[in-house]
């Protein structure tokens, strides 16, 4: 990429957009937003936009040479996206990505197939990072107190400070960071600590409260027992785990033997939803169960067959335990699992937060440098971090946002987003990735490397040089340039797996035991520990089991709700160890009785326009000695109500067989018995009309319910790919969410501990599409390849098509959503996928099977004068799916993967009895019960 691309970036910059935005008679919110309370947010965006206007000059393409991933044109071909390999961190662990860049604007993030922690798939956080990059509310300038300052002024300060440190060896200098795996950064810290031996480095990661477990080969495990461990849920190794797990649940791949999964947990998790056996127990009972396992004493009756099963497969079985279980049980599990261990965790070797707090109280700290994180918000409440911080004379913060922590620091430096800066990071298994910038820092941010270099007295050097120098040191050979280019190109540094690591054990006392209601803390499935709170895509992402958006809730079991006379949306006071939080209640089937689960990450006060005041802050109850909860919770009904915005109001199947489930045994005896239930679809001959023949390609999709883990990434990948707007809580509450592919969630069986099913539902592209028949203007019609196409320009908005769609997958622009507070910031125009129309008010929209991708591949194939290969076209949802549950291709080609899926006896069409002839079909889900467990 070179000068002309930066010029094109500049053209794409929002000056004109901004100008006409200013000139518009009805500014976005004033005109296009029904939410009455929107004037304030309108002013806020206005502020943001003004700020932006001044920042255009800062937006420049990186000048250093970065290397395109697939094609390597000398000059960028306008209209042709380029893909760059990089990585994103989650709690410090890298997940490799490929970033799609249009004329210098990153627009979409995909997993890097060559990276062990992504394997080409992605999780919701990776997908949403692209929105975070453009977030108009990131911190934009160096601040000193209330003054706007400059980087140079800050450097001047550092120079003075360094004089002091040199004299006293850095007494009172402290670094506070999150978990770090970046080899460059670690070495920089090391250098600093060597220069100033009295300085100290402390690490705080809100969700890593114990030495992390090693990584195991789930794919080789025949039997898995997960106790309060959501290994299929969000986490540094989720994508690998999901891929490996799903690979053992595929009946189509001729696998005759499934793995078997037992889950015991207090609150439903993605792992629990996939379990063959799930037990809902409170934390105390789980701990007892764990101990019983370890000691093989007083095992509950239902536990006996589990242990037998595990023992029978010893060496090929796993016991995965959550952080809330005691260390000795976890030790037992580690020993049990050793044969399947593939990677040691990579802990940072900084000192603990509790030690840090002691130093603060002792007044030992003079200068504090906080890299990232948000300790003022997410540290244990008993540390009183926020108020104690005042005891530190000089507080310096490098952060993406002006958040709760920044508010307490004098010097605040805008941090560059991972997509804006050179850096590196290691995956769970140590594999290192060199992170390339996709764009010059939009808001003039600095990277941690640059700050560390400054502290080390070497301010002039750029992030690029820092990272490059480090790797040059690692790679002595004279072919460094080649090595460097290859590493950048592949997105992984060859042979870097299993990097250096040293043990790190934060002081964790045993969870206080007691009686009465128990409290359980969980990270939010959508905004994690709160770091994604200002990301509207994630806030609006329906949470897997409650389908709640824009909120967290106190989850309780139906029985407990009955006992306490609580119903959904009741607001209660949670009294826990003398602290109190007010929270709305949600009744969740499968939740353990007498145990309340709250999600962390909400109730932010300085997150930004999107994240502020969403939900309640559960950290206010979280203490250092019981980070995952404990007993002694009291619930007091307040009589208040809090409305939730849920996207699925009804989670029972109503005896309709939309999700079809059977056991492996059944399937092997009568393959058809599982999927071919209910009313059969009418045959092709049962029609008065001449059936339309689809010669050439006939696109179709198959979704394997046996593989789906319900992680929602398809929804958000689709949102990123197709410029789908966020509509906000009010609109979601009205039933107007815009997601093109939703993940339906059903509970089956007794509410105490139901079976949980996921079903992703995109447009079915029915061959006899009911929607097309009723459109008065022919705005939706069939393509020659069987796509059910939506012509936005022609749509007049009768919404008849949606009424007549039995799957209700069509979405309507009831308002000008593109101008709502979440979409209207001019900078977000850079995020738009140029291949997809942004829809206007009053038109219908829906899943297109990513027709823009189909056409791109078609054009490529025609240019090379060859047929389109199977698997060459990948819709965004399929590409992101870690379980490879979604398969797309040409059903006219019997060799295609999708055709093979559809040939499986497990294949069935949703509501096919209506003779809609859906092109999207499902593979029934198979369970693998344990004959012995069945007896008990």
């Amino acid at each position: 990429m070179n000068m002309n691309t930066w010029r094109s970036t500049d053209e794409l910059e929002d000056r004109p957009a901004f100008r006409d935005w200013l000139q518009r008679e009805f500014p976005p919110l004033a005109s296009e937003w029904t939410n009455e309370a929107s004037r304030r947010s309108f002013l806020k965006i206005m502020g943001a936009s003004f700020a932006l206007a001044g920042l255009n000059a800062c937006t420049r393409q990186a000048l250093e040479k970065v290397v395109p991933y697939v094609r390597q044109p000398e000059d960028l071909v306008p209209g042709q996206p380029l893909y760059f390999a990089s990585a994103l961190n989650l709690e410090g662990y890298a997940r490799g990505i490929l970033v799609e860049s249009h004329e210098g604007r990153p627009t979409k993030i995909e997993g890097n197939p060559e990276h062990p922690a992504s394997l080409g798939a992605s999780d919701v956080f990776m997908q949403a990072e692209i929105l975070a990059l453009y977030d108009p509310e990131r911190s934009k300038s160096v601040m000193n107190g209330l003054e706007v300052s400059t980087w140079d002024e800050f450097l001047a300060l550092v120079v003075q400070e360094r004089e002091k440190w040199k004299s006293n060896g850095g007494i009172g200098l402290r670094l506070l960071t999150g978990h770090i795996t970046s080899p460059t950064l670690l070495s920089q810290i090391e250098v600093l600590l060597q220069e100033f031996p009295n300085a100290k480095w402390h690490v705080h990661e809100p969700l890593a409260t114990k030495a992390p477990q090693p990584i195991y080969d789930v794919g080789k495990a025949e039997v898995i027992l997960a106790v309060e461990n959501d290994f299929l849920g969000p986490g540094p190794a989720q994508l690998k785990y999901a891929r490996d797990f799903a690979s053992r649940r595929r009946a189509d791949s001729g696998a005759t033997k499934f793995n078997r999964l037992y889950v015991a947990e207090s609150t439903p998790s993605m792992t629990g939803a996939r379990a063959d056996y799930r037990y809902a127990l409170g934390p105390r009972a789980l701990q007892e169960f764990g101990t019983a396992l370890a000691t093989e004493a007083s095992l509950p009756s239902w536990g006996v067959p589990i242990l037998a099963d595990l023992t029978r497969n010893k060496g090929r079985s796993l016991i995965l335990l959550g952080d809330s279980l005691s260390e000795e049980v976890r030790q037992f599990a580690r020993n049990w699992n050793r044969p399947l261990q593939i990677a040691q965790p990579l802990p940072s070797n900084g000192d603990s937060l509790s030690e840090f707090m002691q130093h603060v109280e002792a007044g030992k700290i003079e200068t504090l440098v906080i890299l990232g994180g948000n300790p003022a918000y997410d540290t244990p409440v008993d540390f009183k971090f926020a108020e104690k911080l005042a005891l530190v004379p000089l507080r310096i913060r490098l952060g993406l946002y002006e958040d709760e922590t920044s508010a307490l620091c004098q010097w605040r430096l805008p941090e560059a987003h991972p997509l804006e800066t050179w850096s590196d990071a290691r995956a769970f298994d140590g594999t290192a990735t060199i992170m390339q910038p996709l764009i010059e820092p939009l808001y003039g941010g600095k990277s941690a490397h640059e700050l560390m270099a400054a502290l080390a007295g070497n301010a002039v050097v750029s992030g690029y040089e820092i990272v490059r120098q480090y790797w040059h040191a690692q790679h002595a050979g004279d072919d460094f340039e080649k090595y460097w280019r290859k590493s950048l190109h592949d997105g992984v540094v060859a042979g870097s797996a299993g990097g250096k690591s040293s043990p790190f054990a934060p002081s964790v006392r045993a969870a206080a035991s007691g009686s009465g209601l128990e409290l359980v803390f969980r990270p939010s499935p959508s905004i994690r520990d709160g770091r994604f709170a200002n990301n509207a895509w994630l806030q609006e992402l329906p949470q897997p089991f409650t389908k709640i958006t824009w909120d967290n809730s106190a989850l309780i079991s139906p029985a407990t709700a009955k006992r306490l006379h609580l119903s959904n949306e009741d607001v209660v006071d949670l009294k826990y160890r003398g602290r109190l939080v007010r929270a709305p209640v949600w009744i969740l089937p499968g939740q353990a009785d007498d145990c309340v689960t709250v999600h962390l990450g909400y109730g932010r006060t300085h997150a930004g326009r999107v994240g502020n005041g969403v939900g309640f802050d559960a950290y206010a109850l979280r203490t250092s000695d019981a980070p995952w909860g404990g007993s002694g919770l009291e619930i007091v009904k307040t009589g208040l109500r809090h409305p939730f915005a849920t996207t699925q109001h009804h989670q029972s199947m109503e005896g309709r067989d939309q999700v079809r489930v059977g056991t492996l045994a059944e399937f092997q005896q009568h393959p058809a018995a599982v999927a071919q239930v209910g009313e059969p679809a009418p045959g092709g001959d049962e029609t008065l009309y001449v059936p339309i023949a689809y010669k050439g390609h006939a696109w179709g999709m198959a979704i394997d319910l046996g593989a789906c883990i319900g992680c929602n990434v398809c929804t958000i990948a689709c949102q990123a790919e197709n410029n789908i707007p966020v509509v906000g809580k009010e609109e979601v509450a009205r039933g107007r969410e815009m997601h093109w592919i939703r993940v339906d969630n059903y509970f089956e069986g007794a509410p105490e501990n139901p079976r949980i099913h996921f079903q992703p539902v995109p447009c079915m592209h029915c061959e006899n599409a009911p929607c097309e028949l009723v459109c008065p203007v022919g705005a939706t019609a069939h393509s020659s390849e069987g796509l059910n196409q939506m012509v936005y320009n022609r749509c007049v908005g009768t919404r008849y098509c949606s009424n007549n769609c039995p799957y209700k997958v069509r979405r309507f622009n009831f308002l000008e959503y593109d101008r709502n507070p979440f979409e209207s910031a001019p900078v977000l125009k850079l995020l738009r996928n140029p291949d997809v129309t942004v829809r206007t008010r009053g038109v219908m929209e829906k899943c297109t099977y990513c027709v823009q991708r189909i056409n791109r591949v078609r054009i490529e194939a025609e240019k090379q004068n060859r047929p389109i290969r199977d698997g060459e076209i990948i819709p965004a949802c399929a590409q992101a799916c870690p379980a490879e549950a979604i398969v797309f291709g040409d059903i006219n080609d019997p060799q295609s993967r999708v055709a093979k899926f559809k040939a499986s006896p497990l294949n069935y069409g949703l509501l096919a009895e209506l003779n809609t002839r859906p092109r999207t079909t499902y593979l029934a889900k198979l369970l693998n019960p344990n004959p012995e467990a069945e007896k008990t």
Partner: protein
Amino acid sequence: MNVPDETPVVAPGYDSGSVTRKITDVVLARPLGRGWLAGFAFAFALLMLLNFAIGWLLIRGVGIWGINIPVAWGFAIVNFVWWIGIGHAGTFISAILLLLHQDWRTSINRFAEAMTLFAVACAGLFPLLHLGRPWVFYWLLPYPDTMGLWPQWRSPLVWDVFAVSTYATVSLMFWYVGLIPDLATMRDRSAPRPLQFIYGVMALGWRGSARHWKRFKMAYLLLAGLATPLVLSVHSVVSLDFAVAIVPGWHSTIFPPYFVAGAIFSGFAMVLTLLIPVRKAYGLQDFITIRHLENCAKIMLATGLMVAHGYITEMFMSWYSDDKFDIYMTLNRMFGPYAPAWWLLMFCNVLVPQALWFKSIRTNPAILFVLALLVNVGMWTERYVIVVTSLHRDFLPSAWGIYHPTRWDWMTLIGSFGLFLSLLFLFLRLLPAISITEMGKLVLDKKESRQQ
């Protein structure tokens, strides 16, 4: 219905002259009453409310209404079907009853036709407003657009465009043709020159020539013959908007006949609701006699029973079909979130009309008025239940939703009454509300039949 001993359709003691005088005086002689002014002012205020609601709608978009996915149709469609239904009585009275030689229709057909036109005007409003992009409504009209694209003829909405516009046009012509001789009368009876001129222009120079009369009668008869299948077709087509869809609760072959019955049912209810006050206000009891009210009531009873039969058949079919979606839909209507609406419509449309079996009730204007009002409410509720309850829980439980009208929904509905009433008040003030020529003819024939 022509048994001599029955209450006459015209009170005795009138000759064509006095009839003419009485009817034209309502317009020409009667001073502008305070009552009329108050009524018109009220109606006009509501009309302004409608304008406000529409203005906001165009600025913000249909999102100001309560509609959502799955319930993408709400008040707009309910109001449309309701108004178009009301618009059926007029043509039914003037066309079908003409062919059936029901002489009693004479004194109410003009009024009923006017009511039809205004109701259709209100109805026509809603399909336009409910569009996501109302400004491109003309894409539904039959012409190839700049891309050469035509309307999609398989869509019932396109059929609607043709059915409703045809119905509006034909009703208008039917009404106007009937008016021509009366306009001539107004021309000849009005004193002030400007009035003479205006009525004169509208009368097209009608002079009552025998030859003209012959062609006139023939044309009028043929129009009646054409309007009869038309009036049946219009609501059938409207019902196809639902019946063609696959939604449980919509997809039903019984819809056309039972919508038509419902339309005439509600139409006559509206006729009574309006006639009873009007005949009193303008002292037309001698022309619009108890006999008229009673006959309207009888028709209401008959059509009401047909509608009830429709409901029963619908329920039976959903049980008989053994279709799980259909059965659920039926039960959900009775006991689901919208159960109150369903029971209300059963009360208003099935229970209440049974009172009409009794002559004492059929001949009591006050009671009839209340009863007719209830039926109006019931028929609106019926459309609400059909539209909303069918959509809010269809095939996939995961996609089920709920619909709550917003204040903008209500404003548009109430505002449409403003449009309707404003037009009606103007009509009463400016045109003969009863056909003069036909009444003149009628009293004459009656006299002859008495002489024999």
